[in-house]
């Protein structure tokens, strides 16, 4: 990769996939500044949103400005300069040649990021086992006492939280995978599990791709050892002093019942991302039959409960 052919780096991954860890590692590179989450790209995604109406009419900033003589490329170019100017200044301040951007929800704004940043950037894409992601999203929601707006869209549609999180994982990663397949020259993909198991090898691969090879063992030694500007992001990674696999396989605490319900949502994409599918139902028909049997027994129990309540009055 010729380092002169692009300007910035964008980290992409579904929230809770290790993007904050990756940010800290990138930021430890002597030539790369990767600040805490700026939210610039997700905000840019919202800024560029368009709403289509009957007859193919579209309402939004780009079609709106087109009426006044600003074509799409001109709008995007001006907006890109505005966004990039912040990251350039951050990199300048740190005396680094290149900037990188990471905000956890950016993957849900990939259409806009593709339009805005395109070939001007390279993209480091990280994926993680879906069941670990859903456990972590649950933990995040509990801790924050609310959901990230992009995740809330899923929770709003699906009262069963784990299924909502699994759908967010599926949609985010489907879009990410499509982006990687469409732009192999712009993207490098890694799995959280591989990064935590063998950070030296995985980071060397990433930095080679970026045209920014470096002494990775030295980078790892300083990456997590220093106090830095925290910002928003994974609170746990800021306590970590080394890259480890402690958070791999945390989904083993999920019930079999939950895993069976999530399997149809995540399995089709898991194999494409290099993960073994999780346990699907052995027999849906048998399970449904069993539930019917239990329902009938519970109906009898309900009658007994109603009778007991009547007797008590």
């Amino acid at each position: 990769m010729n380092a002169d052919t692009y300007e910035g780096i964008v980290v992409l991954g579904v929230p809770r996939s290790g993007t904050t860890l990756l940010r800290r590692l990138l930021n430890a590179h002597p030539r790369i500044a990767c600040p805490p989450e700026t939210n610039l790209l997700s905000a840019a995604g919202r800024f560029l949103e368009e709403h289509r109406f009957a007859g193919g009419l579209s309402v939004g900033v780009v079609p709106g400005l087109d009426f006044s003589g600003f074509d799409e490329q001109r709008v995007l170019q001006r907006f890109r300069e505005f966004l990039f100017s912040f990251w350039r200044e951050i990199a300048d301040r740190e005396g680094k040649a290149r900037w990188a951007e990471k905000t956890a929800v950016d993957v849900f704004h990939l259409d806009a990021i593709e339009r805005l940043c395109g070939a001007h950037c390279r993209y480091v894409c990280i994926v993680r086992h879906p069941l670990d992601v859903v456990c972590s999203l649950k933990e995040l929601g509990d801790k924050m006492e609310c959901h990230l707006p992009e995740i809330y869209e899923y929770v709003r549609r699906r009262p069963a939280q784990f299924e909502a999180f699994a759908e967010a994982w599926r949609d985010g990663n489907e879009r990410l995978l499509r982006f990687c397949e469409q732009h192999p020259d712009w993207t490098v993909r890694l799995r959280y599990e591989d990064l935590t198991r063998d950070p030296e090898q995985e980071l060397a691969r990433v930095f080679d791709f970026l045209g920014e090879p470096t002494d990775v063992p030295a980078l790892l030694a300083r990456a997590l050892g220093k106090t830095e500007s925290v910002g928003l992001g994974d609170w746990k990674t800021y306590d970590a002093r080394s890259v480890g696999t402690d958070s791999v396989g945390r989904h083993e605490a999920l019930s079999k019942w939950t895993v069976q319900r999530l399997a149809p949502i995540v399995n089709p994409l898991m194999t494409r991302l290099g993960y073994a599918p999780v346990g699907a139902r052995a027999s849906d028909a048998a399970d449904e039959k069993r539930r019917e049997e239990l329902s009938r027994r519970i109906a009898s129990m309900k009658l007994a409960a109603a009778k007991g309540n009547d007797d008590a009055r």
Partner: protein
Amino acid sequence: MSLTAEAILQFMNDELGIDTTGLGPDSPLFSSGVIDSFSLVTLLSHIEQTCGFQIGPSDVNLDNFDSLARIIAYVTRMTGPDA
């Protein structure tokens, strides 16, 4: 596999969307309406799958399933105290 009262409460909270605040071991679940028929089907299926036995037809009654303590007692009888 073992099943604890805490694990049942967690399942009720996470999977069934039931507010388990204030529920004690002897709080009535079904007869009080805390848990409805649909949710109880899911809970019983979960117990069967987690504990590896099938609940007998005559066992589905309030004596066995109307409180956390009763559920744990029933599961313990079916699987043994060390299961």
